């Protein structure tokens, strides 16, 4: 009889495709919005992962997220270095500075200054040039996406050339990406592009520029507090959690392992912004659309077949068997609808890969979508089952 149940489901084309569409759309909306949400929120702490192998991040105790500008005094570095168990400690600068391009346009850029000696904090992927070139005078490296989209130069200005005094560029003239040798100004100080790097998209949409720490602090506005963070490596055999506690106790600064710092950053954005609520609404809408469309369709499908279930019941089919048939129909529709939706989300994710769109489908997301589809199917089939259980087999003689 279960084979017949499947044939009944597949045989009613209009309702079957309606159910599939509803479930597929629900799982699509749930998984896609959840993936974009995860992708977007991952960007809030992407920089922490970008910095590479660091045991601890040390920062101002009141700092809530990695991009929050609460710099430390320069004395923080030797104080951290003085804590027992610290193998190395390196300064890191991170701040928003204004870059001026040769055509006079100004862009706010996210400038990262890494340790001059160890280059700790450098991005993992260098597209052009060498990270060691950052030690050259005025050297900066630019994130390759920014070089192509936001920091564009006039096409008629050769790499390394400086505009003549009073030279005016036509804003409508063709532009080109930043290339090695190009000169820009950061807070009215000269900066020469020596390479291009690729790093993860972060929550701050500004172009990312890397340089060494000593140069970054000269680009930054003068202040006694310029060091954003101290990066720390623990001695062999020292547990990072223990070391963090010691640093907190001895320096009064906050010290966290990268994952904990990532979660602190994520927690800030989750708590302080409406992003989770907005995405939560979209996901809930997906769920309710699924209930409304697929649930309604499935219920109607069962209602349309109620007279046949009644005939089966009259012929001796038990209620349990009929419930099994309805449950199987719901399960098959659910699995196919889920597959359809997740397939569409995966295609969407593949097409969005490498682009600006935040999309990250964790393995939990298909499970969440499957759970939601399961709930939709259970809701729809329970209501339908109720009709089947209450079905009076004698109704078949009344044309029910």
């Amino acid at each position: 009889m279960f084979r017949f149940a499947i044939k009944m489901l597949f045989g009613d084309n209009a309702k079957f495709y309606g159910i599939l569409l509803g479930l597929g759309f629900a799982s699509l909306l749930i998984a896609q919005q959840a993936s974009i949400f995860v992708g977007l929120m991952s960007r809030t702490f992407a920089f922490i992962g970008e910095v590479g192998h660091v045991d601890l991040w040390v920062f101002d105790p009141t700092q809530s997220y990695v991009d929050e500008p609460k710099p430390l005094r320069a004395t923080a570095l030797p104080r951290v270095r003085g804590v027992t168990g610290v193998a190395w400690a390196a300064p890191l600068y991170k701040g928003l500075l204004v870059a001026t391009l040769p055509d006079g346009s100004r862009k706010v850029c996210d400038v990262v200054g890494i340790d001059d000696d160890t280059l700790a904090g450098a991005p993992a992927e260098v597209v052009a040039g060498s990270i060691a070139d950052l030690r050259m005078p005025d050297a900066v490296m630019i994130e390759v996406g920014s070089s192509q989209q936001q920091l564009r130069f006039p096409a008629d200005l050769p790499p390394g050339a400086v505009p003549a005094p009073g030279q005016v560029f036509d804003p409508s003239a063709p532009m080109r990406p930043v290339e090695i040798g190009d000169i820009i100004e950061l807070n009215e100080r000269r900066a020469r592009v020596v390479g291009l790097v690729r790093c993860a998209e972060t929550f701050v949409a500004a172009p990312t520029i890397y340089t060494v720490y000593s140069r970054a602090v000269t680009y930054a506005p003068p202040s006694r507090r310029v060091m954003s963070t101290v990066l720390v490596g623990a001695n062999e055999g020292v547990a990072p959690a223990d070391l963090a506690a010691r640093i907190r106790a001895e320096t009064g600064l906050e010290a966290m392992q990268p994952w904990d710092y990532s979660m602190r950053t994520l927690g800030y954005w989750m708590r302080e912004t409406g992003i989770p609520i907005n995405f939560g609404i979209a996901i809930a809408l997906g769920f309710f659309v699924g209930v409304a469309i697929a649930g309604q369709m499935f219920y109607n499908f069962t209602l349309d077949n109620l007279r046949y279930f009644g005939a089966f019941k009259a012929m001796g089919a038990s209620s349990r068997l009929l419930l099994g048939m309805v449950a199987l129909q719901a399960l098959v529709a659910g699995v196919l609808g889920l597959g359809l939706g997740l397939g569409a989300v995966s295609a969407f994710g593949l097409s969005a890969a490498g682009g600006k769109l935040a999309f990250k489908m964790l393995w939990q997301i298909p499970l969440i979508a499957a759970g939601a589809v399961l709930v939709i199917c259970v809701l729809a089939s329970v209501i339908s089952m109720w009709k089947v259980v209450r079905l009076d087999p004698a109704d078949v003689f009344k044309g029910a």
Partner: protein
Amino acid sequence: MAGATTATDLAIRLRAVEKTFGKGESAVRALRGVDLDVPAGEMTMLVGPSGCGKTTLISILAGLLSRDKGELEVFGQDLNALRRDRLSAWRRDNVGFIFQQFNLVPQLTVAENVSVPLVLKGESVGAAVKKANELLATLGLEGRGKSAPLKLSGGQQQRVAIARALIHEPRLLVCDEPTSALDAELGRRVMSLIRDRSHQHDRAVIVVTHDDRIFHLADRIAQMDDGLIKNIEIRAGSKPL
């Protein structure tokens, strides 16, 4: 109404069966104390005006409804004594139904529709469909097993419904207005077929009908009115009780 009988001759024995729907002032007494004996090997027709209790009576006889009062034995079995799951199994094994509206599942093929009672009894779909095709051939529907039911004419659909009712060789065949959708000639052929089955297998057939064109095929005609059997007409050639 019924005369004295011996249990071995009877397929169905009812005594003072009552059935009421609803409660209080809105209660409707559908059966008011029905007495009826249906011999095995015969076709009994239930006739009477709409609302007289025919459908309620066949529903009780087929184990689809329980009676409120009275005695009922179908092939020696008191149906009220069976639990719901046992009653389903009893219907599956002993009763064949021909519904007024056929109730053929449109998404299944003709042969699959016919095979349902066998599949319910645990036979594999393949074997059941094979038997269904064989039976369909005897009913003049050879080669139509893979057709969709809705592509058949009304008469052909009725024959499919008959095949479905007969395939598991039930002891009791319950037919609800089996000729209502058929023209006179086809109606006679269908009823002859059902009658032959009842006689060949020494089983009982109950037919609810308004169609006086087929009355002559009955062994007995039970006239119902207002929840009671008012008269039983025994036709020539039927077994004495």
